[in-house]
């Protein structure tokens, strides 16, 4: 393994016996005990993830709003201070630079929380798009900020025990700046697991302390440290796309089924022309979810067929631990992208039956 960057929690992971893997240039825990047990803990109790590798880019200044409105597909006019928004950032081709969360910290201060492996590319893209003679400041704050994700049906109960404010009233995609165990924290009701939960932004040097506090506070009710392996199976079951798999520089938000996050009413944003054309003329391919009808696990890159003809490719596939069956996500030509269509997946030379079904595969009862 080539030595990747390490988060401030690296020694904690090693002490907990985590198996470390390279992800987006970082050396991260893929699992502590096992992916399945961590996945189940998040669905039934809670899990604590170190996601400090994620990037935080601060965009501030008088013209920051107009700048971000042009860079992002979603509409920041909807956003109030204390709220977060999911958005795509596109190239003029409509291809996706990254998918991210925008946090509005103040009227002229935003955080973009971006994928670890895309951070440098995102920064370069943002700087390239900077208009002349405008007041916009772009700052990479990633090295100063630690990020924990506390996810699961018991996350609120656990956090309530250590947080200075009541988090019960915090609505989905809102955040509050408060304290946890006396340490300043930005607590947002967001996540990437399909389960209730929070993401907690901290000063990097205080992150280990809060990691310990939360694990301790949740121990009795079944909170476990959870790795990127479970994070991936959880987001997969919840039908959430992952950059590098479902989302790439050559896929558009519409093809990925993320049209909801494209604000057509905005004057202009990068990629709008191509997306409008796609919307008007129809898509050549669409992302679909499918369930295996025969024994086999679809994996990234496997071909999808209909009546022996290739119609697309798998982007993610896995055993779904909560549903105890095998599922996949993949792009297929639009004519074949409808629910109940019986297709096949080519696995080790064999064509195995699958059925296109509605996403997400799993929906929490919360």
């Amino acid at each position, binding site marked *: 393994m080539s030595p990747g960057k390490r988060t401030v929690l690296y020694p904690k992971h090693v002490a907990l016996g985590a198996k470390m893997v390279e992800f987006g240039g970082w050396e991260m825990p893929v699992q502590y005990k096992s992916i399945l047990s961590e996945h189940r803990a998040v669905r039934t109790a809670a899990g604590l993830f170190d996601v400090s590798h994620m990037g935080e880019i601060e965009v501030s200044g008088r013209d920051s709003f107009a700048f971000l409105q042009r860079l992002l597909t979603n509409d920041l006019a909807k956003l109030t201070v204390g709220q977060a928004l999911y958005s795509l950032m596109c190239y003029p081709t409509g291809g996706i630079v990254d998918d991210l969360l925008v946090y509005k910290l103040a009227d002229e201060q935003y955080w973009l929380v971006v994928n670890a492996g895309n951070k440098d590319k995102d920064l370069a893209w943002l700087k390239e798009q900077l208009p002349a003679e405008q007041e916009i400041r772009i700052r990479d704050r990633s090295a100063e900020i630690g990020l924990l994700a506390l996810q699961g049906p018991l996350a609120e109960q656990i956090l309530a025990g250590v947080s200075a404010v009541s988090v019960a009233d915090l609505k989905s995609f809102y955040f509050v700046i408060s304290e946890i165990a006396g340490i300043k924290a930005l607590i947002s009701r967001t996540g990437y697991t399909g389960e209730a939960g929070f993401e907690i932004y901290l000063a990097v040097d205080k992150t280990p302390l809060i990691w310990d506090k939360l694990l301790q506070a949740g121990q009795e009710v079944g909170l476990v440290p959870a790795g990127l392996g479970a994070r991936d199976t959880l987001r997969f079951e919840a039908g959430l796309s992952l950059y590098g798999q479902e989302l790439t520089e050559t896929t558009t938000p519409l093809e990925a089924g993320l049209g909801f996050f494209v604000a057509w009413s905005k004057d202009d944003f990068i990629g709008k022309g191509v997306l409008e054309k796609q919307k008007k003329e129809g898509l050549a391919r669409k992302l679909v979810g499918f369930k295996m009808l025969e024994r086999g*696990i679809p994996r990234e890159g496997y071909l999808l067929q209909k009546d022996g003809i290739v119609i697309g490719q798998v982007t993610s596939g*896995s055993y779904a631990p909560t549903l105890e069956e095998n599922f996949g996500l993949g792009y297929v030509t639009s004519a074949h992208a409808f629910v109940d269509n019986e297709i096949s997946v080519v696995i080790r030379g064999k064509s195995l039956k699958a059925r296109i079904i509605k996403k997400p595969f799993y929906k929490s009862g919360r």
Partner: protein
Amino acid sequence: MYPENLKYTKEHEWLLVRDKWGTVGITEYAQDALGDVVFVDLPKVGTKLNAGESLGVVESVKAISDIYAPCTGIVKQVNENLFATPELINDDPYGEGWLVEMEIEELADDLLTAEEYAEFVAEEE
């Protein structure tokens, strides 16, 4: 961790030989490296395999591992319990987690003893 009565391959299979019968599985090291096993594909009874030929596949949540025959011979029995409960491979790799039983014609010529396998694994780590 590596029972003395078994023979091993560098691909992390084990083979228990009793007369002309051989039981095949994957080692403790292999199951640990793979993580939670969630899928197993095995050959049909009656399949003739050459030593080193692919015998089947064991998949964990994250990884796919090909299993190679540690001997030339005919598959006499497959562990069908693994189709519904593949985790037996994690829980009991040398017992309930066995994969196939073969009628041995000839052993692979590069099988390792438990001691040699332990050394090989130590070097791999």
